[in-house]
């Protein structure tokens, strides 16, 4: 690719005998290489960011696990790191994360898939041109605003239906989070469906299939890998979402899989600790890095799964 890569490097002694124009050219090569190196450094910087994330999280977690055995971290059923009787059972925070994510996915996956199918197979050009930017806007709303909406608008409405619902609960946070994730799921699934070649659809129509039959039995199977990776992106968004849960789900650690209860998630615990005034280097300070490492490993696992699914089940036309 690079034009300068193949250029021979000139020995220093040549510089005296050649004309001004050519010596200018030699300096041109040097300048090219310097620029290329600078651009490479910018690109390689992203690798450094990843390494820095891993380093910071592992380093602080390491000191944490010197105090807390890993088995306690994984199997204890209480999470009270800031109390005198400290327990560090990550399971408690995981249950909140999983419950709220499950609620969100129950909303986002069906709606996102239907919207994608509708936009790619049914909607006319105009509807699509209006709907796609609108979905993008929906995905661009700050999550703190969604949190405010869940707390002050959705929770009171849900309380009218279920009077026993507490003011902070995983249900309304999860529902709003689901709406927030719809755009991601819908737009990625739609891309996958639109990538299915027209000839497959034409073949299906020629056999007398209707639009719905074509969409469900031809387009969806052909786009499975893309749709699956859209779902996985949705899951990793839900797991990493912070502000909606911090605002609307309360921050009490609570080992429950019932969405109608308040609960803390990994992310909202980190926010809670950061809002307080924990001294740098204390064990309470280190817990948020251990929690963050758990979160990073989870999202990493989902990302790898998505990558693998895309490779393994990709239809090649």
């Amino acid at each position, binding site marked *: *690719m*690079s*034009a*300068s890569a193949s250029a021979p490097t000139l020995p220093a002694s040549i510089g005296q005998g050649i004309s001004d124009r050519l010596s200018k050219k030699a300096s041109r090569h040097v300048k*090219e290489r310097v*620029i*290329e190196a600078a*651009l490479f450094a*910018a*690109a390689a910087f*992203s*690798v450094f*960011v990843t390494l*820095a*994330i891993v380093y*910071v*999280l592992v*380093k602080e977690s390491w000191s944490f696990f010197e105090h807390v055995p890993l088995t306690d971290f994984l199997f204890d059923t209480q999470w009270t790191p800031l109390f005198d009787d400290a327990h560090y059972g990550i399971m408690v925070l995981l249950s909140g994360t999983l419950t709220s994510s499950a609620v969100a996915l129950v909303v986002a996956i069906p*709606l996102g898939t*239907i*919207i994608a199918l*509708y936009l790619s197979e*049914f909607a006319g050009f105009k509807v699509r041109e209006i*709907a796609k930017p609108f979905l*993008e*806007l*929906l995905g*661009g*709303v*700050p*999550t*703190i*605003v*969604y*949190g*405010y909406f869940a*707390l*002050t*608008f959705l929770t009171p409405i849900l309380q009218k239906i279920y009077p026993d619902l507490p003011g902070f609960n995983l249900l309304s946070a999860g529902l*709003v989070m689901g709406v927030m994730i719809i755009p991601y799921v819908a737009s990625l699934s739609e891309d996958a469906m639109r990538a299915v070649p027209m000839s497959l659809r034409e073949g299906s129509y020629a056999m007398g299939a*209707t639009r*719905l*039959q074509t*969409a469900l039995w031809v387009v969806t199977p052909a786009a499975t890998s893309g749709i699956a990776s859209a779902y996985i*992106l949705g899951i*990793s968004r839900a*797991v*990493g979402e*912070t*502000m909606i849960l911090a*605002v609307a789900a309360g921050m009490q650690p609570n080992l429950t899989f019932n969405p109608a209860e308040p609960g803390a998630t990994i*992310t909202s615990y*980190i926010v809670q600790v*950061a*809002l307080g005034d924990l001294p740098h280097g204390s064990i309470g300070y280190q817990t948020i*890095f251990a929690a*963050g490492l758990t*979160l*990073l490993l989870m*999202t990493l696992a989902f990302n790898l799964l998505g990558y693998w699914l895309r490779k393994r089940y990709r239809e090649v036309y």
Partner: protein
Amino acid sequence: MLQATDLAAIRAIITRAKRWDLFFSIIGILSLMVGVLTFTVLFVDMAIQGVPRLTSEFFTSFPSRRPENAGILSAWVGTVLVMLVTALSAVPLGVAAGVYLEEYAPKNWVTDIIEINISNLAGIPSIVYGLLALGLFVYYFGFGQSILSAGLTLALLILPVIIVATRESIRAIPQAIHEASYACGATTWQTVSDHILPYSSAGILTGVIIGMARAIGETAPIITIGALTFIAFLPTAPFAGDPPAGLFDWIFAPFTVMPIQMFNWTSRPEAEFQVNAAAAGFVLVFMTLAMNGLAIYLRFQLRKNIKW
């Protein structure tokens, strides 16, 4: 031979199939409406609660313990300054990385690692960037809980967005432009700086605006670095602080930003503070909507005006 009864049966099948098609179209529109309706309700609800609060004093007052006197002066000034740091660090870095990957990068394992790494970075939750910033910027580099730390954190967060946008808009330029430039004897950098960057600048700008709109609304990483929520003063203006005063004194100042101010008001029990939260939220949503809308409009114009 086709019997009349067969014909009727076939017609019945067609009618039924069409009915299913119509049924699914309606479900599709209803699903879209869930999104549209949520957004409308959210926006209107916040407007009804918050807009009466949007007086000029609201924009020119500091936060206060009395809700009716509280304002967002320190929050919006903080947001503007943090965004300045973010843009100045993320845009050059992101564009340079995008240009390298599209124009220079050889096909080898180093490039593969960089590419996989960038798509991985895009999937990391924002709060993890906050933890990185807490360990690295705040304590290791000793920047403290300053505008600089926050701006750099958000810059890391939107870096993948800018890199991807840069790459996509460079890829939209036809190969013939490259070839013509090289045929005239231009070096790679001359081709990039005289042709590729100017032609892709509108696309890059779109990506930058979308990235900045995301950064404006990010709350979690900034809370994680430990930003104060009660700031009743502005960062020192250039050359105004204690001598030796400099142009960039403000980057080490403590600060608050719009989403943090809103979070602070949301988490208070008094109803009057909820009104303030709605007003701040309205301003925030308005800003992100305006930026996203601008980006969408730019992209639309770009697609219309493309000449090759």
